[in-house]
């Protein structure tokens, strides 16, 4: 079905189910319990999960398949955001033209940067992409102020033309919508002590993420995907086999740039502003971390990595000393203070420390990222079950290499 084999179809179905049920899955704790801290099912965080998922899926097509490590992909994210906001200012608050323009402009931008950067490989390629992104960031901040509105960032204004919407809508700023359906519209569902938010913007982002995830699977399983893996494996052999590796890498670069632009366009569609900081090198580094943490070159890894990092950034960072004291309140005072002191550096503003340690642990012990961790657990479980059933045959079948 869908042109996928059974394994990929199962993965696609699982991801689809998880994404569609995310408002429920991410809110497992009753809303007034102490654990409600860890609920992540509120609209803007869920939107960020899937948007960064898209960003990382695209990055993985370049880095995971070809091995070319771009350190400047945030530039495409930023270009996508600026393009989208301009569409909201000039044309219409409908998100469709904004998203389409974001993808096209970032694709063109990626074509230029990729064409130049791909003349080099390895560290030199990474440095070139980093240089381009920093250049874009600085330009957006200064020289290009008429387009980017510099430090303040590009925002909507009451007197924007918005040709299709028929100009200004009176006293308040209009909101982004899809044929009248407002992105911020949220339906709250209360079941007992639980409460779940179903948000239009989230579901739009989720549907788009599922579509581009499906596209990524198709690319991975296509002859083109094999060629990209060949680039990573042995470019010399590729060239002596009659294949020109340059257009393959450029195509991968442009595709991943368009994914980034799509993510940027969606970001602006959820919240119509765009700032230069979206293009900064830290943002480029973040998508590298997401991809490696989840598992570069795997299908689901980048999505997991993106979810993981965004969860930490938004949940761990909110745990302050008051919260810690309330957790450890049952302990005797001395021990309570002691525990709070121990945990303090790892939460709240210290969430970077926890994330950094986890990243190191993953890179050292699980070079294949979280996906490898999952596979090891899976193998451990099936290995035990087989032993119990005395299934030597099943064991042999598993050892038979997959085609």
């Amino acid at each position, binding site marked *: 079905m869908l*042109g996928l084999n059974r394994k990929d179809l199962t993965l696609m179905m699982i991801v689809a189910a998880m994404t569609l049920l995310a408002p429920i899955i991410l809110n497992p704790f009753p809303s007034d319990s102490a654990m409600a801290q860890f609920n992540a099912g509120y609209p803007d965080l869920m939107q960020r999960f899937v948007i960064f998922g898209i960003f990382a899926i695209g990055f993985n097509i370049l880095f995971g398949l070809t091995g070319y490590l771009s350190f400047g992909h945030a530039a495409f994210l930023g270009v996508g955001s600026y393009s989208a906001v301009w569409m909201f200012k000039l044309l219409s608050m409908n998100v469709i033209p904004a998203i389409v323009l974001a993808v096209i402009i970032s694709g063109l931008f990626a074509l230029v940067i990729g064409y130049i950067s791909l003349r080099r490989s390895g560290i030199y390629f990474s440095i070139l992409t980093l240089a381009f992104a920093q250049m874009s960031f600085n330009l957006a901040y200064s020289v290009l102020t008429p387009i980017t509105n510099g430090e303040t960032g590009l925002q909507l204004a009451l007197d924007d033309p918005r040709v299709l919407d028929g100009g200004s809508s009176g006293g308040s700023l209009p909101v982004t919508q899809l044929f009248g359906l407002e992105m911020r519209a949220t339906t709250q569902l209360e079941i007992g002590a639980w409460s779940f938010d179903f948000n239009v913007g989230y579901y739009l982002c989720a549907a788009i993420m599922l579509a581009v995830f499906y596209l990524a699977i*198709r690319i991975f399983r*296509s*002859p083109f995907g094999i*060629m990209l893996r060949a680039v990573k494996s042995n470019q010399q052999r590729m060239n*002596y*086999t009659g294949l020109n590796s340059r257009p393959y890498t450029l*195509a991968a670069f442009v595709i991943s740039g368009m994914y980034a632009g799509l993510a940027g366009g969606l970001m602006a569609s959820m919240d119509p502003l765009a700032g230069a900081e979206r293009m900064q090198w830290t943002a480029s580094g973040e998508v590298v971390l997401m991809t490696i943490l989840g598992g570069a070159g795997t299908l689901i890894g980048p999505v997991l990595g993106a979810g993981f990092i965004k969860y930490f950034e938004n949940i761990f960072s909110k745990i302050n000393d008051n919260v810690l004291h309330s957790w450890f309140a049952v302990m005797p005072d001395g021990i309570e203070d002691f525990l709070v002191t121990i945990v303090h550096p790892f939460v709240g503003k210290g969430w970077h420390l926890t994330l950094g340690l986890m990243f190191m642990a993953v890179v050292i012990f699980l070079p294949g990222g979280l996906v490898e961790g999952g596979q090891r657990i899976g193998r451990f479980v099936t290995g035990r079950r087989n032993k119990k059933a005395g299934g030597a045959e099943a064991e042999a079948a598993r050892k038979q*290499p997959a085609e």
Partner: protein
Amino acid sequence: MGILEVKGVNKRFGGLQALGDVNLSVAENTCHAIIGPNGAGKSTLLNCLVGKLIPDSGSVMFDGQSVLGRKPYEINQMGISRVFQTPEIFADLSVLENVMIPCFAKRDGAFRMHAVESVESEAGIREEALAMLEDVNMADKKGMLGSSLSRGDKRRLEMAMCLVQRPKLLLLDEPTAGMARADTNNTIELLNTIRDKRNITMCIIEHDMNVVFSLAERITVLAQGTPLVEDTPDNIKGHPKVREAYLGEAQV
């Protein structure tokens, strides 16, 4: 006039004259061996044929066209495939994928954006690759990763990758070096079968005289970058200059 014509090729590496005025003519549908001691410039000569190196002077014509100044992938698309002295395969890909890649290159050219078709739907390419793997007795290893193969299997895989392209000219750089006796014999047999089945011109660099004498119709002896003699195997065997320069060290 041969399918490959090398005329007056020179190549220097700094002070070292690696190739000095090399002339070579390889007739269509023959096997031409190049022998000579280590460092004679044999690999350098092949590098000049496939676009890895550009000669300082001289000309290299293949099939009536000059190969000089062309990129390696263009030269391959003209019909020259090369087996390297140290096996060059796609280590992170499966054996089957390794052989499918040259099939794609042959069918689709140097670049094609076939990004949404599934590999599984490419039945023709798959069958072609599988048949090739049968020919080199590696069909049972089709699912293994290139990196997990033995050295001998890597060489056989690389040969399969070149042969499946049905090149007009196959260049082999010491294809049996480091192989066990049995594997060497298999390789000779494989190359002879391929020659019987279809028209193919081969140019082989080899130290094993057994291999050379069972395959080659003509032999060029290279010493210090210059061809010493070129003749038939029988005449080369008895050639005094050759015995002195090269065969003296080897068991004939």
